[in-house]
């Protein structure tokens, strides 16, 4: 069966705690921010935005929107602009694979990405002395001058594949491949799975009536869906003229 890994993020369940952001950074060997880092120059492959319905006072409602690489399936913008072919849509899994080591740092992909989900290494990674012992061996450390983004915790997919191969199996056990953000969420707001498998809970959630995708009208066919029963949250999917502010991180 075809495999298309994707996620459904339930905005009604997200409390904005930030556990997914920290777990993602730890899994991917993202260095702690330099003293000069800002929300624009930081590296946050998982980034949670605070959004609101634009009203003030009693009528104001807020929610949280975790944003990660949307794993665009159709005419993936970053793939089409990269001069180095440093990013590729994997035909086998649907994951948009970023190869920082191949990147030359032109940042064209950062311009192309409609979701601002790509991050540039402005500085060489630096950890306090000795902390490199705590680095995850499954993910290579990037040097400055390259772009990185969420790879759907590919190291965990590798581990699942290796475990399956050692046991003589062809297919991985889905329980062995759980991205860090999905695992970390205290309210289980993120459902991860194979969107191409009709029986998969993620696939079913993506097809529910409350599901929506950000900027769907661009036609990039993102594989990260959102879900909410609140109409004002669903309305955030498309920017509207005359619409209220959406606070960016």
């Amino acid at each position: 069966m075809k495999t298309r890994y994707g996620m459904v993020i339930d905005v009604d369940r997200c409390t904005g705690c930030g556990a997914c952001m920290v777990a993602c950074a730890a899994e991917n060997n993202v260095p702690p921010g330099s003293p000069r880092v800002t929300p624009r120059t930081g590296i946050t492959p998982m980034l949670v935005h605070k959004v609101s319905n634009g009203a003030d006072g009693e009528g104001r409602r807020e929610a949280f929107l975790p944003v990660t690489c949307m794993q665009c399936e159709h005419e993936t913008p970053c793939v089409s602009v990269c001069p180095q072919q440093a990013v590729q849509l994997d035909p086998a899994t649907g994951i948009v694979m970023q190869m920082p080591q191949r990147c030359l740092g032109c940042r064209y992909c950062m311009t192309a990405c409609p979701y601002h989900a790509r991050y540039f290494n402005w500085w060489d990674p630096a950890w306090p002395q000795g902390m490199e012992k705590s680095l995850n061996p499954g993910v290579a450390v990037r040097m400055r001058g390259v772009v990185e983004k969420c790879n759907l915790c590919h190291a965990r997919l590798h581990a699942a594949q290796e475990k399956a191969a050692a046991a003589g199996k062809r297919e991985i056990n889905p329980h062995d491949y759980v991205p860090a953000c999905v695992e970390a969420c205290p309210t289980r707001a993120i459902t991860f799975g194979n969107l191409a498998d009709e029986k998969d809970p993620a696939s079913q959630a993506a097809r529910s009536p409350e599901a929506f995708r950000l900027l769907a009208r661009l036609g990039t066919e993102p594989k990260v869906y959102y879900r909410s029963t609140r109409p004002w949250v669903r309305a955030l999917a498309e920017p509207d003229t005359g619409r209220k502010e959406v606070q960016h991180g």
Partner: protein
Amino acid sequence: MSRRSVTFGFGFLAALAVGWFAFPRALYVQRAQPLEFRHKTHAGKSGVTQCSDCHALREDGEFAGIPRMDTCAACHTDRIGTSEPEATLVDNYIKKGQETPWLVYSRQPANVWFSHAIHMRRAGLKCAECHGTYGESDQPRAYQVNRISGYSRDIWGRSISRFRRAPHEGMKMSDCEDCHRKRSIEVGCLGCHQ
């Protein structure tokens, strides 16, 4: 022959000589392993007959690679022979609880992910297909390191031109690609990288 063509030819031949003979010698420097381990000694005497007796796959699929000290310590907690390399192992490493700092011939960069489990179990490759018959040798093998890149000579292969290589010689990305192409196995970038 004109003076010009002689001079040119002289330079040409000098370059050829330097490029083919002096350059490979200068590019690589030999390093000694911390001790002279001999595979054959183990194969004959202690019944260690398979590669996987020491270089094994763990339960979660990870490959043990160069065995850790506790594998060696299973037999060598104290000296069981008379050789000098064993004395070095026992006194300098096992007794002090330190891992032996082996120089790894097939060490790949950190951004490479190679799964022994997939290649051994799914592809059915034998150790010698990539690593040669080193496991049957009774001579310790020289470790030559490239001065510029810092990697073992085994990655490029012994032959400086990469012509007429032995089937197992070379572990560069192009070598992996050749085999994958031959067997029509397509993997994306992150299929081998991390």
